[in-house]
Structures are given as C-alpha cells and as structure tokens.
C-alpha cells in the first residue's frame, strides 16, 4: 500500500532481452513495458511464448542479457547479490509448480515468508490462520504438501505468496489446478489484494479469467515479443487518485 501513491511506475522493462546459455535464439527480445503501482495485469500467450521467463525476470530469478529492468525505481539488472533478498521480500510469487517445501507442514509453508523477515513467533499464528481460512484450508494446516491435491497445493502456494502483503504479486498459472469455482475465488482474492495496493501480474492460459477483473491490463507474448496493441503498457495511463 505504501507504494501505491508514492511511485507511479513500479516496474519498467526497457528493451529487455533474455537468451539462455546454449539456446539457439533469444527467449525474450525487445520487451518494453511499464507496470503502474496498484495495477492488475494479465500476461497471456501460447506455451513457449516466454511467459514464465518474463515472470522470472520480474521476480529476480533471472537477470536479463540485454536491456534494463527497473524495479521499485532501481536497476534490477545490476543489483548486488546482497540486496536481492530485500527486493524479493517485496514480491510474492506463485510458482507454476508450487515450490512448496515438502517436509514442512502447510502451516509452516505459509508462515515461511513471515519467519524470513523476522516476525516474532507470537505474531505469526493469527495471519497464518487467516490465510488458511482465506484459501479454505483451515483443517489442512498440519498436513504436508505431498498429501495434498494439486489444487490444495496451489492454494497453499497462493497463501504463502500473499501473506507478507507484497508490493507485487506474480502468479504463474495460479488457477491451472483448481476447479472453476475455486478459480473464481482465487481471482477474487487477488482482486482484494490489488485493492489494498498490491500490483498483480497473473500469467494465464485461461481466457475466461480475463474479463473478470475490471480495469485489468492485458499483456500478450508472442514468440518472446510483447504485443501491446493499445499502447497502454508502453504509455501507462495516469496514476489513480488516492481512495
């Protein structure tokens, strides 16, 4: 929330290119866009278009091979290693493959971001239980991820991503393993978080989701290039007035 009015452009990609070692060509090339603080963005594109690679750049798992990425006003491509954790704590990530810690309980997985930031143990229980309730997994707190269904793991991953109230939430196919009702509920959760000021970027194949969020922007990747037919990504609209 602190960034909503303090900073208009939370993410800026300037002619960003990404080439993996030993690959034939660039996975992403000339990607240029701006994400406004508090915006809601859908990233679409066919499989292999580069959606996951773009998200990796966004959550600092990958550095670009060309171009500049500005995150929270700083050049993310040249950030020293010791400053990466501080940036990553401001970005919540829902991975396509969930990436839950298999030997930790659902409760401990969700609590992990709070423990990483040094939240006292006594202050962890309430938000974790709230998250468990939010994603409908209250009775599953003591269970470990391998005993959960794909959809349940997805929800744990979402709860873990949002518990720290990140400035940006990046979700890679977050509704891929849940039924339509749960997909609608999760999207509603993202929208609620967005209303609190979090910038949300959701990569999805599911075109049914796209119309469900009012004022959401659409980013479409085709063969590693970003399509911006309306120009809204290159020239974002003026910042919204404080609520």
């Amino acid at each position, binding site marked *: 929330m602190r960034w909503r009015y303090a900073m208009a452009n939370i993410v800026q990609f300037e002619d960003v290119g990404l080439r993996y070692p030993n690959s034939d060509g660039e996975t992403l090339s000339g990607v240029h866009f701006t994400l406004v603080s508090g915006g809601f963005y859908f990233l679409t594109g066919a499989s292999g278009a580069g959606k996951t690679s773009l998200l990796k750049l966004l959550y600092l*798992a*990958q550095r670009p091979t060309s171009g500049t990425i500005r995150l929270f006003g700083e050049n993310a491509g040249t950030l020293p290693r010791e400053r990466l954790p501080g940036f*990553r704590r401001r970005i919540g990530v829902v991975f396509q493959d969930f990436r839950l810690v298999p030997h930790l309980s659902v409760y401990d997985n969700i609590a*992990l*971001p709070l423990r990483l930031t040094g939240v006292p143990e006594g202050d962890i229980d309430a938000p974790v239980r709230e998250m468990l309730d939010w994603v409908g997994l209250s009775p599953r707190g003591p269970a470990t991820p391998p005993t959960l269904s794909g959809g349940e793991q997805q929800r744990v991953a979402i709860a873990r991503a949002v518990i720290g109230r990140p400035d940006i939430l990046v979700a890679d196919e977050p509704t891929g393993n849940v039924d339509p009702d749960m997909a609608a509920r999760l999207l509603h959760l993202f929208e609620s978080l967005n209303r609190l000021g979090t910038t949300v970027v959701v990569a999805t194949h599911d075109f049914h989701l796209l119309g469900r969020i009012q004022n959401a922007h659409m980013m479409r990747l085709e063969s590693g290039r970003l399509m911006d037919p309306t120009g809204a990504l290159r020239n974002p609209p003026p910042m919204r007035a404080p609520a």
Partner: protein
Amino acid sequence: MSAGVVAGAADRRILDERGGTRAMTWIMAIMLLLTVLAAALGLGMVNAADTLDRQLAGRLTVQIVTADPVQRDRDTTAVMAALARMPAVRRATPVDRARLDELLKPWLGDTSSDAAVPIPTLIDVDMSVPSEESAMLVAKGVRTAAASARVDSQSRWLSPVASFMRTMIAGAAALVLLMAAATTAVVLLAARAGLETHRDTIAILHMLGSTDVQVARLFQRRIALDTVIGGAIGTVAAMIAVWAITRQMSGLGSELVGGAVLSQGDWLILAALPLLFAGVATLAARIAVLRRLRRVQ
C-alpha cells in the same frame, strides 16, 4: 528463520534432517573421543615431565671411585666435609652399602657384597639452589676435596627419558591439531553434502527473500548441535577411559608414572574441547555454506 542466532523449533524444521543427523553426531563423537584421548596423553606427559624436572633439578650424584677401600673412606669423609661447608648444598647423603649391594645384585650376583670387589661410594646431593652454576661450583669443590671423586648430574643420565616425554607431548599436540583439521574437513564435506541435499529448499528460501546468512545459519546451527551432542558423548567416554587409566597408574607406585596423573585444570581443558570443536565446526560450516551460496544466482 529469525534474525537471531538462536532460533526456535520452526527454524530447525526447515531443513529436513532425518537420517543425516545421527551419522554426523556419531562421527563427531568418535572424533572427540580420539581428540580427548590424545589431549589427555599430552597433558599427562606434560605433568610427568614437570614432575621429572622437579625431581632431577638440583640433584647430583658424587662417586668416590678408588679401588683402595681405606682411601675411599678417607675421600668420602673429605667430600662429605666439603659438601657440608657449601651453602649451595642442602643435604648430602651417602648411599648405604647394603642398598648398593641390592642394586648391583642383578648384575654382579652375591660377589657385590664381597669387600674385595671395588664398589664406588655414592653420595646423593640435594642442591638448595638448583642451577647449572651451583652444580659446577659443587663439582669443583668436590674434586678439590678428593681427586677420585666424580660428579654426575642426574638430569644428564635421565635426559633420554625427558627427550622421550617431549616427543610424546609434541606427538599428542600434533594429534589434537590433526583431529581438529579432520573435524573441519568432515564439517566442510557435510556442509557441501547438505547444500546439495537441500538444494530445492534453499532455492525456495532464496526466492522468498532469504539471505545467504540466514541459510548458512540453518546449517551452522545444525552442525554446532551435532558437534556438541556428539562431542559430549565422545568426551565423556574418553574421560571415563582416562580416569580408569589414571587410577591404575596411581596404583603402580612409580613417582614418574604417578606424576602423569591429570590435575583439575587438565580435566577442565578436556571438558572444554567439545565446545572448542563446536566453535571450529560452526565457523567452518558458515564459511563453506556462504562460499557455495555466492556461486548460486
């Protein structure tokens, strides 16, 4: 995964340690068992060498070496009188002839008690001021009193024993250092293996904003705990063994062997070894993990 050095049970759960922990604990127990035994040997030798030094320093043996028994008695009287006048001499005691016969019996048989066999008279001299200069003055005075007198410093003929003890002390110290180096190597290997085993968990932690120091802390705490627990087991076992050996040594009745018994301070040093090793292991784990993590994105 709090910022503090000591964390709660939640932090300890982050690394799945089923299986590996017990092995590391027992390895540390064995390492510390051997280290404490080596250290106890070294400390015992230091004590024995001190005892030997105290016993030999300032002790001389005067021999009156002449075949003529009358002359021998005369020289003995002269030497005793000269020694009595010397301020550097605390006490001079001629060795009893019966005691000499007993000492020589294994070599000479019953003939040693034969008056015809020229056995030198021996005088044990205790110096009041044990020093090289005093010993030289006494030797000079003794030779002036009787030309047939020879003076031996006891430390000279016991020098091979002292040299052996010094070698043993150096060997024990080298063993302790080697064990510390081996422990460090084991910890480095364990830390690297742990990083490989927990690679996925560490990647998740990094993505959630964990610092390298936080990850390193998980490993160093685990290894410190293994070292302290294993070390305590090994140290207690070694101390029981050392205690049993020193009890047997005390019963031998030898001044030299009895001198090797450990003091209260020595026991405290042995008890501190697992803590020292835990410190070394913790530091080694931290360095190893941080170095490895720096190579990761």
